[in-house]
């Protein structure tokens, strides 16, 4: 590959001095007078942004599981789970975003197992107080959310690639599951209480010395979204996420 312009401009100056810049600027003056100039008159007209634009996070309320993956994925810890009433009046956990802290990285949308968190095209976020910058779950809903705003996580397993399988994209919430180290389990049932998708069922595996049931969690791999709530809740660190690679 040869140089494209460096050969034309060697050490010796080859320009035409002052004529070329004068002509070029005059030409642009006439062009921008005849046509419209490049600038957009911002408050009156807005630039079109594609649907995959990463503005503030949005939430599709009914899809959300309240699993908290977005909370843990957020680099600036601007998301927290709050209790709100859903359409039937039941109290459920949903994410609330402090947009004043959000860095619009889109991780919450990317890691959401059910694509409830989305990116939106909303970028005009100025408010008069910091309190107004906190978007509760209902306010997070964005009008005109479409499927282009969802971010689909498509990862390929290295083991699959080694086998030559290249058409089975997966994601961590489809493959990674918690596993139990049975010796440590004390049958406290905390894991089954925190599970957002009710994938944990406590199964009786025997009786202890005092005659009480020993219950161990049994994890339903179909339902589980790998949210790690059980892992965090476990007081004896008996549960651990097993990564499939």
């Amino acid at each position, binding site marked *: 590959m040869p140089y494209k312009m460096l050969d034309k401009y060697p050490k010796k100056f080859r320009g035409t001095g002052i004529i070329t810049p004068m002509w070029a*600027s005059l030409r642009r*003056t006439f062009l921008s007078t005849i046509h419209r100039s490049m*600038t957009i008159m911002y408050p009156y007209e807005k630039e079109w942004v594609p649907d995959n634009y990463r503005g503030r996070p949005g939430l599709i309320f009914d899809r959300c599981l309240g699993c908290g993956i977005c909370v843990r994925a957020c680099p600036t810890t601007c998301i927290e789970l709050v209790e709100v009433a859903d359409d039937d009046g039941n109290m459920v956990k949903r994410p609330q975003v402090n947009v004043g802290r959000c860095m619009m990285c889109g991780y919450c949308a990317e890691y959401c197992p059910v694509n409830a968190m989305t990116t939106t095209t909303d970028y005009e976020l100025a408010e008069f107080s910091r309190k107004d910058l906190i978007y509760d779950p209902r306010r997070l809903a964005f009008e005109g959310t479409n499927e282009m705003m969802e971010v689909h996580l498509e990862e390929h397993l290295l083991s699959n690639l080694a086998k030559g399988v290249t058409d089975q994209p997966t994601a961590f919430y489809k493959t990674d599951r918690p596993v139990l180290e049975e010796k440590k389990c004390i049958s406290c049932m905390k894991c089954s209480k925190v599970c957002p998708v009710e994938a944990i069922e406590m199964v009786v595996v025997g009786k202890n010395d005092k005659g009480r049931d020993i219950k161990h969690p049994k994890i339903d791999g179909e339902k589980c979204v790998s949210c790690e709530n059980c892992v965090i809740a476990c007081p004896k660190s008996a549960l651990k996420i097993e990564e499939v690679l």
Partner: protein
Amino acid sequence: MGLSILDWIVFKNPMANEYYPFGDMYNLPYEIGYKLSEIILGFVAWFLNLFVHDNLWSQWLVSDVVMNVLAIILLVVVIFGVGFIVNLTMIWEERKILGRLMDRRGTQIGPLGYFQCLGDGLKTFMKENIAPKAIDKKIYWWGLALVIGTSVLLACMVPLSGRWFIADYKVGLLILFGMFALAPFLILCAGWAQNNKFSLIGGMRAAELMISYEVPMLIILATSCLLAGAYGINDLVQFQNDHLWFVIPEIIGFFTFFVCAIAESERVPFDLSEAEAELVEGWQTEYAGMKWGLIMLADYFRGYVACAFIVLLFLGGWAMPFAGTDTWYAEIWFLFKVCAVFAAFVWARGAFPRVRTDQIINIGWRVLMPLSILNLVVVVAIKLMGWM
């Protein structure tokens, strides 16, 4: 004198006034001022006369002396007002043309963005008026006042036509030029007084600029006067109208003077004394708030005078081809020419970067100086051959 108001406001011929200051020359702004003062004073005198019939105060108010004094004050106001509006128009013109040149829109407030500079002026006016502690107070304030004052005075002294002037000197061009050349000296003083290294260097650069550009400029000015055979502005314009606009015989001088005029009014390719890339704001660094705003306004007044110089010396002043110098639109035609020359200033601003100090001295002494002398030789040859 009767009770009717028309007895008091009679619209006399101003030139018939005993104290008419312009001799046998007709002066339009004076007439405007005279008419206005007749209305004002006549009304007051009539009003007093309603209470006390034939009182001395009313008689005194409409006498020639009082009428003349108020007319002169109003003459100054009218001339300054027109200069100020022209100045605002030029700021608007610059921002609009630069906007188009840079592929953006320029000013937005008001019709076609005309009121933007009023808004900017208001904003600058609201800024805090800060003066540093360790300044040389006397020179700091006097330098500022004189820079602004001389620039405004200069702009008022430029005649717009044969009937629109503040004083008609036989050596008008020389006086204008003398005032014009005063600014760099004041900038040097103001830069020194601010006790700031940036403004000090800016002031020094202004002096540097003055040395390298004043001389070719003065030579070309003298050449034009030589060609016309007079120093008076009226004579110069009349001569160009009778013969030929000087831009044709003095084409070298025209371009040389153009470059010098940009440098003299400290506009962008040559605005070394306020080079914002290296010297923050140059000699204006410590002038905060409205002081800075007025300096910017004064800069544009000087730009206006530089353009007026070019129009008067080379482009025939207010002379319209085939219509002569005594047209009813002479002032408008002159200001139109000034704005057209200013558009070329703006164009140069958009196309070129700022030059360096050593380059500016090189250009001044090695290029512009020989060119101005060449121009003088050409003019002398024309005069000797008797072509003009």
